[in-house]
């Protein structure tokens, strides 16, 4: 699995981020989502900014305590093993992983059926198979 944005279909509604924060944090707050999809106007035109988990697995490799593992095609985070070293946050190339008061927040694809993908009204956000 890996999240991918088809820009031509994205309307920048942020329903994906709202769905994520609701599913993972039980509140509505895009800042707490484990993905970022922003479509905005800049001097040069319409710009898409994303932070989407690509399943690069760098975080798995760098975690010193195996708090982050790779199971069933997605990440699994075990907070009990986390030492708050912050390496995964620093190394995540997509800037998906963020810190919390205790531990970190990452994208675990909601265990297989990502809420963000379910919510995207125009199928701009998709879950691709990754080898």
């Amino acid at each position, binding site marked *: 699995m890996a999240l991918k944005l088809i820009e031509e279909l994205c309307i920048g509604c942020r329903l994906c981020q709202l769905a994520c924060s609701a599913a993972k944090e039980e509140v509505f*707050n895009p800042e707490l989502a484990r993905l970022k999809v922003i479509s905005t106007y800049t001097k040069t035109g319409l710009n898409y900014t994303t932070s989407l988990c690509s399943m690069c697995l760098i975080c798995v490799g760098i975690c010193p305590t195996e708090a982050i593992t790779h199971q069933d095609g997605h990440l699994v985070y075990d907070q009990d093993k986390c030492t708050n070293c912050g390496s995964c946050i620093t190394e995540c190339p997509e800037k998906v992983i963020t810190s919390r008061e205790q531990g970190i927040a990452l994208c675990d694809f909601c265990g297989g059926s990502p809420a963000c993908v379910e919510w995207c009204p125009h199928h701009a956000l998709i879950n691709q198979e990754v080898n």
Partner: protein
Amino acid sequence: MCYTGKLLRVNLTTGQSQVEELNKQWAVDYIGGKGLGIKYLYEELSPGIEPLSAENKLILMTGLFTGTIIPLSGKLAIITKSPATGTILDCSIGGHFAAELKYAGYDGVILEGKATKPSYLYIEDQNVELRDASELWGQGAQDTELILRDKIHEDVKALVIGPAAENLVTMSCITSEFYRQAGRGGVGAVMGSKNLKAVAVKGSGSISVPNIKQFVDTLQEVMRTDTLTDTNLWVNTDGTPLLVDLNQDTGILPTRNFQEGTFDDYQKINSDALKTVRTGKKGCFSCALGCGNYSRSGRSTVEGPEYETLAIGGSNCGISDLEAIIEFNDLCDNLGMDTISVGNVIAFAMELTEKGIKDFGLKFGDVDAYLKVPGLIAAQDGIGVDLGLGVKKLSEKYGGSDFAMQVKGLEFPGYEPRGSWGMGLAYATSDRGACHMRAWPVADEAYGDLDPFTVEGKAQLVIDLQHYNAAKFSLILCDFWALSMETMGTLVSNLQERTVSEQELTLVGERVVNLARQFNVREGYSKDNDTLPERIFKETLKTGATKGQFLPREEFEKMLAEYYSLRGWDHNGKPAEAKLQELGII
């Protein structure tokens, strides 16, 4: 539930701000957005104040739905007293500001007084600062947003004004996300008169909802079965330009200052034409549809043009050059002006010139002269001084009031009322002057099954539509989701954990409409102002589906009298005491 319970009150004169509790009873009676904003303004403003004076207030109000996953709930209501009309004025702006304000912890902001020098307000959760805007003053709307993103944070959300509002032009607007506006009635000028260049916000808070997982599941089902349906998907496939074709074929496309209802070159400015220059689609916060058409043509790019700009700034000016209309749109957006009012005043000036009443050097179809006007109005230069007065005052100065297409000082939107008689009543009785956003009978008349050329049943139709929109804009939901009042009740019930029926919501709508009316009555408005220009009552249209049609004054008066009677207002259009008591307004 779902309110933050806090209002931010800012005294721009002293630079001080305070947080106060949201009035809980008013939140029950008026919900939020339009209704709650009008309630606050009605209670806090004395009648007769000058809209461009420090005594006016500018209220930013979110709704119950703001910041949640409810689709199409991302708009903000902005409420003030209009400098163009002197009536109550509520505008609705999209973009992403409203949710950010709520995440910052506020249901609304009340801006009072006048800053001593050009300033902008920055709200970051509990930190509120009035900052110096000397480097921003004079900048276009878009550049202002870019500078704020640079100075503060790339994700900051802002409401900004352009140079037109700084110069107190009464057709100036408030802008956000480059291309979204609180457009009408000179709302921008109120902000300019307060020396306030921008309001920027960053919010880190969250919104909680009871049983959020169930709520989200319910809303996903609602989105699939009620939002993403053919009834609403025109917004995504085409956006508002689709209306050019509908209105051409139903004979209600304003052409050459509402002289005609069809435009021979309509295919040069319709949705098909726009799709050839469209490069992207965009929506507001939480929008599932995405009406924005990002278009690039010649030296201009805009999110748009919307139907109103294509009609009022296009066919209504005899302009069929799409690239020119896009440039016109871009100019108005950056200078910060309402394309409906600017388009109308240009068309009016074109007719005055052609009739030899007053030479503004403008002619229907003359692109070069047309493109110079927005800059002149914004700068209050040359003919811009006269044109900036708006159609009503311009007609009072030079004549031509018969074809000054306005009501109460607000210029006509893009629907010919002679082809939709209920629309004529809607324009005449709208709380802010000629407006299609309080009631839109066009859907039932021109596009639907009702006979457009009768007043039969139209008073009740307009009343029902006004209640529906007033409730909708208090929740807040965007106009483009055609959901039923019943569904709106279901959404509110889901959030508030109590059953809110469609009757209750209709009552809120009625209360809001009556309160807005009471505000206007208090300002001296009466039946005399609930009227239409003579052109509508006297001149017949000559082409297409509305050939031979006009709206006879006696018919209009019948419709208006029935409207007042059904509303429980007296023959002068004043809400009876019994009605106001019934609604809990007095």
